[in-house]
């Protein structure tokens, strides 16, 4: 039986006359890493702020670890760590002093230094934060979210400003926390990074959830194509179809891969019929393509 650590039901929120969240509902299973994606201004940060009890919402219910969260009900926040939009940092304190300031009594110094080491912040952790670069501040923000070993971690664009090595460090860190049972809700526009991390995806557009799915289902549902560029595309398509290969309608000569058809056979077939092959490519729908298609469909739906 799976337990859910975060439950959002029918959440709505307006700023003035502008409705920013419309009837948002989703649940998060303990130990999972959830990706929250959507265009700029879709309402990702707003959802995260609501989960942290930062503002009142007129409708809906947010439960963290079985307890309702609102500005006047914060008990479950003790088990939550967060980085929202950009890290809040006091320029006159050092990185270490920040971690010390926000760490709980139960958090030992070894735990603090462990996080510092894993994010490779040793070299500057005792320098004042006003001397930090963008990425250094970002890492400090991530460290602050993780330092108390929370059960639920909310990260808004955590890869912002990180170099490739730090990105990898962060990924390993998140994965190792997740293995020990920590739940993550992560928003990011860097889908190629996000793809390597998340178990489930929640897509939001214009304040509405348009799609929730597990990554396994999402990936198995997407088509893998083999795209040919030949001297005579019309003839090539015709011959391949005759021999029982399934062609994709997207244009060009694209065969849908099903695990049985062999590239070598197809090449032999085409060259045998006097067709020159100029290029062959595996086309794999990544998260970005899937997402863009999804949002395109959604806009079509919305405009109807």
């Amino acid at each position, binding site marked *: 039986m799976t337990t859910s650590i975060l439950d959002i039901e029918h959440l709505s929120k307006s700023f003035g006359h502008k409705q920013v969240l419309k009837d948002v509902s989703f649940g998060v299973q303990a130990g999972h890493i959830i990706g929250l994606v959507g265009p700029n201004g879709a309402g990702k940060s707003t959802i995260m702020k609501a989960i942290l009890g*930062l503002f009142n919402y007129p409708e809906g219910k947010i439960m963290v670890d079985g307890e309702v969260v609102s*500005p006047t009900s914060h*008990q479950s926040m003790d088990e939550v760590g*967060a980085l929202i*939009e950009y890290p*809040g940092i*006091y320029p006159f304190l050092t990185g270490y002093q920040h971690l010390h300031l*926000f760490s709980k009594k139960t958090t030992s110094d070894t735990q603090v230094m462990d996080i510092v080491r894993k994010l490779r912040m040793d070299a500057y952790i005792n320098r004042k934060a006003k001397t930090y670069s963008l990425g250094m501040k970002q890492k400090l923000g991530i460290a602050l979210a993780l330092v108390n070993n929370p059960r639920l971690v909310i990260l808004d664009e955590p890869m912002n400003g990180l170099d490739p090595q730090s990105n990898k460090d962060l990924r390993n860190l998140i994965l190792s926390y997740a293995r020990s049972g920590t739940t993550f809700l992560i928003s990011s526009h860097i889908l190629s990074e996000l793809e390597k991390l998340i178990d489930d995806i929640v897509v939001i557009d214009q304040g509405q959830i348009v799609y929730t799915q597990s990554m396994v289902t999402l990936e198995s549902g997407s088509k893998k194509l083999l795209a040919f560029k030949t001297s005579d595309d019309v003839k090539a398509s015709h011959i391949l179809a005759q021999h029982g290969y399934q062609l994709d309608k997207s244009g060009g000569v694209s065969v849908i891969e099903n695990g049985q058809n062999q590239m070598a056979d197809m090449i032999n077939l085409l060259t045998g019929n006097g067709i020159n092959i100029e290029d062959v490519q595996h086309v794999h729908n990544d998260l970005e393509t899937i997402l863009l298609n999804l949002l395109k469909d959604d806009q079509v739906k919305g405009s109807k």
Partner: protein
Amino acid sequence: MITLVKQECFKLLHKSSTYISSATLLLLMTALGFLSKYYPGSWGKPEIQFVQLFAGIYWIPLFMIAACSSIIAMEFQYGTIKELLYRKYYRGQILISKWITMFLYSVYFFSVSLAWSLVIKAVLFNDTFKLSDQYNNQLTIIHANILIIIGSFLVLWMILSLVLLLANVFRSTATAISIGIVGYFGLYIIEGMMIKIMNRWEWLKWNPLNILNLPLQLTEPNADKVTLLSTPEMVGACLGYTIISLVLSYIVFKRRSV
């Protein structure tokens, strides 16, 4: 709550401005000590300067206005307000912990200023006057000194409560501090005119500017002829204004979106 106050003190103790203001205060007081020793004619009699903590009672409000503006406004400026608010504490607790910290800070300033005044007195004016000498017909010097400190402290908090309210409105520390300090000087300028107007409309005696005269009233027996208020009335009004501003800033802070 104690944890929150400790956190606020930790931040205060790691800001260089904290040390700079303390050092500046002591320097300014020492300078005035020397001036009134060598030029008592133009810089005031040493007894009077001692009673006013060598102008400490005028400088402390400036430093405290700056500190109170920044303790609220900096959280919005640095974006650390989210960091504070999402934890298990409530908004009200966060705000009150800041007030308590500032209260402790103001007590610290007055204590340091009094201690330093005693040092200046012992070093520069050991033979000039004794603390037990008469200050005026009714009070000894030390007695007047204590009354001035109490009066200044009450008035200071009336001003600070207003500053704490205004600091909620500004998102930058620099704006909050400048407006606080300019306003402080403005108050004393308008105050002179206010006394004249009060003679025409008596109810105006309850205005907050008149309450700024509290330290004077405590030491000058005839001051109530000018202020038109008795001492208990003045103390009551001072506390009343302080409480009103604090309640308002509590409401504003609780409703403010981050």
